[in-house]
C-alpha cells in the first residue's frame, strides 16, 4: 500500500476556567475539559487531515485508522505540496511566579469581584469583570521521529465599565493576560482607570475625519504593526499572491529606523515553545531597517515561497496549523514622546485599541482606537472618542517619520481562517505624516 510522504499528530488536552461577574452578580465560575487531536498526512499531492475528540495517539489501532482516513482524503487533493526541512527543538516554558492552578476558584472569584467593585464610581451604570485561565498539554508526534510535549497555562482578565448620561453611553476597558502566572492580585487600580475613562468619554469630542498628522500610542501602533505588516508577511498569503508584500524582499518600504519583528520565542503572551509542526521558533525581522526582509513561514509555505523563517505555524486545538504571528512589534527608535509631540504640532494622538482588520491582497487596513487626544501646538488637548485610522499599507509605512523609544507590548487575540490564537503586539509611540482618520466630528 502507498504510504504518506509525511504525517504528524498534534494532541491538545487541557482545561479552561472562566469567571464572569456582571454588576456584582457571579454569572459563572466554571471549569471545562477538552482533548482534541489532529492528524495530517501528506499524500502524493496535498494534505489529508483527520480531527477527533478524545483520540488516543498511543493506541496503535486508533492511529492506524486515523492515518488511513487522512491518507485516503489526501487523494482528493490536486496541488503538489513540498515541505521544507525544519529544525526541531523546544524552548523551556517559563516558570510561573504563581501557578493559577494552585489558587482556589473561590479566591479567584473574590479577587475578580474586588476588581469589579473598584470600577463602581459615580456615573458608572455597569461594571463587568471576566477571568480566563487555560492550561494546555500539547503533544506533537511526527513520521520524522518527533515526539515532544509541553504544558503551558495562559491566564488573564478584562474589566469594563459603562457610563451613561442623557442618552449617551460610553465604555472604558482594561485587560491584562499573561503566560507568567496568576495576575489577578492587586489590580483594583485598573478597574478605577477603566471607570474613569468611561466617565471622561461622555464629555469627549468626536474626532473630525480626514487627513491629518497622527501619533499612535504603543498599543495601537502594535495593532498597526500586526494588521498592516504582520498579516501581509504571512507565507500562505504571500504564496496565494494575496499580499502586497509578495515579491518585495529587499525593497525599501519605510524609513531606515523602521524594523518590525515577529518573535514567538519571546516570553510574551504569544510565546510558543515550538510551533504547531514541532519546528524550532525564533525571531524573524519582517522589516529590517526600512526594507522588506523576511516572511513568516510554515514548512509548506517556506518550500513554496522561500525568503523567511519556518517556526510560525500555529493552530487552535483540533485545527490545522496556519501561518500566524505570535509577538509582533516595532523595534524602538530614539525619539522621546515630547519630541514626537513637538514634531506633530497639530494632529491627533490615538490611544488604545478596539481591534482592526486588513485586506492584505488589496493592501488596505483599518483599526479603531479606544480614545484619543487632540494635539495643538505640540501639546495634548481635549479628549476625543471613536477615532479610527485606515489606509494603504505601503503608503502608510512611508508616512512613519518618528519612532519613540518607549516600546511596550499588549496582549490580545488574533483571528484568521476561523481560528483564534493568543498574541501580543507592541511598539513605541509612532508619528505618522498625513494619515487617514475617521470620525464623525465636523469643523
Amino acid at each position, binding site marked *: 500500500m502507498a504510504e504518506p510522504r509525511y504525517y504528524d499528530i498534534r494532541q491538545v488536552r487541557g482545561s479552561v476556567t472562566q469567571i464572569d461577574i456582571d*454588576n456584582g*452578580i*457571579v*454569572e*459563572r*465560575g*466554571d*471549569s*471545562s*475539559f*477538552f482533548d482534541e487531536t489532529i492528524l495530517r498526512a501528506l499524500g502524493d*499531492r496535498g*494534505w*489529508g*487531515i*483527520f*480531527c477527533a*475528540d*478524545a483520540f488516543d495517539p498511543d493506541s496503535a489501532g486508533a492511529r492506524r485508522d486515523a492515518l488511513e482516513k*487522512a491518507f485516503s*482524503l*489526501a487523494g*482528493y*487533493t490536486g*496541488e503538489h505540496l513540498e515541505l521544507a526541512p525544519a529544525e526541531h527543538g523546544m524552548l523551556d516554558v517559563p516558570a510561573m511566579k504563581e501557578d493559577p492552578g494552585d489558587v482556589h476558584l*473561590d479566591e479567584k*472569584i473574590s479577587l475578580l469581584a474586588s476588581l469589579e467593585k473598584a470600577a463602581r464610581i459615580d456615573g458608572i*451604570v*455597569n461594571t*463587568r469583570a471576566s477571568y480566563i485561565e487555560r492550561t494546555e498539554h500539547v503533544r506533537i508526534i511526527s513520521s520524522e521521529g518527533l515526539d515532544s510535549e509541553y504544558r503551558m497555562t495562559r491566564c488573564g482578565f478584562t474589566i469594563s465599565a459603562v457610563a*451613561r448620561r442623557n*442618552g*449617551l*453611553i460610553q*465604555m472604558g476597558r482594561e485587560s491584562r493576560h499573561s503566560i507568567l502566572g496568576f495576575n489577578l492580585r492587586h489590580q483594583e487600580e485598573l478597574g478605577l482607570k477603566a471607570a474613569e475613562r468611561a466617565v471622561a468619554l461622555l464629555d469627549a469630542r468626536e474626532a473630525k*475625519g480626514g487627513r491629518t498628522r497622527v501619533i499612535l500610542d504603543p498599543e495601537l501602533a502594535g495593532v498597526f504593526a500586526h494588521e498592516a505588516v504582520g498579516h501581509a508577511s504571512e507565507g500562505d498569503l504571500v*504564496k*496565494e*499572491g*494575496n499580499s*502586497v508584500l509578495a515579491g518585495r524582499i529587499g525593497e525599501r518600504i519605510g524609513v531606515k529606523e523602521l524594523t518590525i519583528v515577529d518573535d514567538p520565542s519571546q516570553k510574551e503572551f504569544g510565546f510558543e515553545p515550538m510551533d504547531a509542526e514541532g519546528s524550532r521558533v525564533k525571531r524573524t525581522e519582517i522589516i529590517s531597517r526600512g526594507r522588506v526582509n523576511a516572511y513568516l513561514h510554515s514548512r509548506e509555505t517556506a518550500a513554496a515561497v522561500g525568503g523567511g523563517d519556518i517556526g510560525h505555524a500555529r493552530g487552535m486545538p*483540533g485545527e*490545522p496549523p496556519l501561518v500566524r504571528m505570535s509577538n509582533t512589534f516595532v523595534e524602538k527608535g530614539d525619539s522621546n514622546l515630547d519630541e514626537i509631540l513637538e514634531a506633530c504640532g497639530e494632529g491627533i494622538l490615538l490611544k488604545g485599541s*478596539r*481591534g*482592526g*482588520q486588513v*485586506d492584505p491582497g*488589496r493592501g488596505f*487596513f*483599518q*483599526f*479603531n482606537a479606544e480614545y484619543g487626544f487632540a494635539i495643538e501646538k505640540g501639546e495634548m488637548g481635549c479628549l476625543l472618542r*471613536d477615532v*479610527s485610522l*485606515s489606509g*494603504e499599507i505601503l503608503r502608510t509605512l512611508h508616512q512613519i517619520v518618528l519612532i519613540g523609544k518607549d516600546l511596550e507590548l499588549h496582549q490580545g487575540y488574533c483571528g484568521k481562517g476561523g481560528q483564534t490564537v493568543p498574541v501580543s503586539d507592541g511598539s513605541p509611540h509612532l508619528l505618522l505624516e498625513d494619515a487617514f482618520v*475617521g*470620525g*464623525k466630528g465636523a469643523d
Partner: protein
Amino acid sequence: MSEERALIEELLGEASRLADEAEVFIISGESLSLVQKGESCETAEASCTWGMGIRVIRQGRIGASSTGDPKRWKDCLIAALESSRLSSPQNWGGLPSPIHIEPRAETADPAFILSPLTAARLLREVGKGVARHRSRIAEASVELEESTVTLANTHGLEYTAPHTAATVSCETIVENSTAFEFDQSVHLDLDAARVGEKASFLAEYSLNAVEIPTGNYDVVLSPIAASHLLGGVLVGALSGKNVHAGRSALASLMGKECMSPLLDIYDDPFAKGMGSTDWDAEGVPTKRLDFVCDGVLGAFAYDLRTAYRYGEESTGSAVRAGHAVAPVIGVHNLVFDGERSDVKEERALYVHDVVGAHTANPLSGDLSVELSKAFWIEDGESGTPVRSGMLVGNVFDLLKSVEGLGKESRVVGNAILPELRLSSQRIIGI
C-alpha cells in the same frame, strides 16, 4: 439502548441526586472540507466531533461544565456542581418540562450526502464560475457538516434534531484587487458556480477604481455589508440581559419609533436560514419574536436565566455556540423586512463590504470603517468603482436612515436581509 441514551440516563440520574435540576446538551457529528489555494485543492479534511455540556441548578445557583470525552462525564458533573456552589443565587422557576412541539423548522436535508466527491464537485463549480472573469482563486473552500443535537433534562425533556450545513466560499484576486463571496445552506442546493463568478466579477470590476471626495451620499449596503455593520451591535442591544445591565443603547426606547418606519426586524426561527430551530438551547419552544415593527421597538430577547431574574418571560432566545459554551441570549434567524423597492433606481454609493466592522463601539454603535468593493450606482446600473473611503456613522443612526429595502433577501450567517438604501451618509474620501 444507544450508548448516548445510556449516558444521558445515567448522568441525569446521578445529577438529580446531587442537584435540584440538571440539563445535558450533546452535539455529535461529522464534517468534511476541501480547501483550494491557487490552482487546485491542497487540503481535504474530515472531522468527527463529540461534545457535551452540562448545567446543574441548586437553589437558584446555576453551574456549568463541558467535555469532549464521554468517559469523563463524572468529572464534568462534579465540575458543574462545584460551579453551582460559586455562582450568585437568583430567582429560578425551573427548566422546561417536555411538551409536544410540532416540527416547523427545517434544520437538516434528509438527502444530504457528506462525501468528498460532492465537495470536490462543488469546488470545481466554484472554479468554473471564477473562470468566467479575469480573476483567479486566492482561496476557495467547501465545507459539509452533518450533526445531531440532543438536549435532555431531569424533567424528562429530551429533544433531538438533525442538522446539516453546506458552505462554499471564494476569495479572488486580480492584480491588487481582491473580493470575497460565499453561500450557505441547509441543503446541497448551493449555486457554487455563482459564488465563484460573483467573487471573480467583483475583483475584476474594482480594478481602475477612482477616489471619492469627502461628502454626504446616499448609500446602498449589500446584505453582507449590512449584516457586518449592523448585526453585532444590534443583537447586543436587543438582549434583555444587556438592557437590564445598563449596556443597551435601546434600553429606554421600548414602544418608541427609534428606527426607520420602513423597517421590521424580527427573529424567525422557522425561516429558511442557518439558525432555524423548533426549541432553543434550554428546551424552550421557539417562536417568532418581533423586535421592531414599522420602526417601533417592541421586544427584547430573553433566556430563562434573565427572564426569571427580572420577572420577564423567556422568548426562546437561548443559543449555544457549541457544547463548550453555555447558553446565552441570541437570535436564530434575524430577519430585516419591510416593503420592498428598487433601491438602485437613483444614484447612490453601493457598498459590497467593509473592513473593520467589528471595531464599532459595541455599546454606542459609533463606527468608522473602510469601504471594500464600493461603486457608484448610476441610472440603475453599476457604475464607476470607488477605490477607498471611510463610512463614518452610528449603527442606530444607520437604522433610522433606511429609505428602502431591496427586492431579494439573502442569508448571511444568522441574518436574512436584503440590500438597504440609506439616506445621506458621511463618507470621508480625498
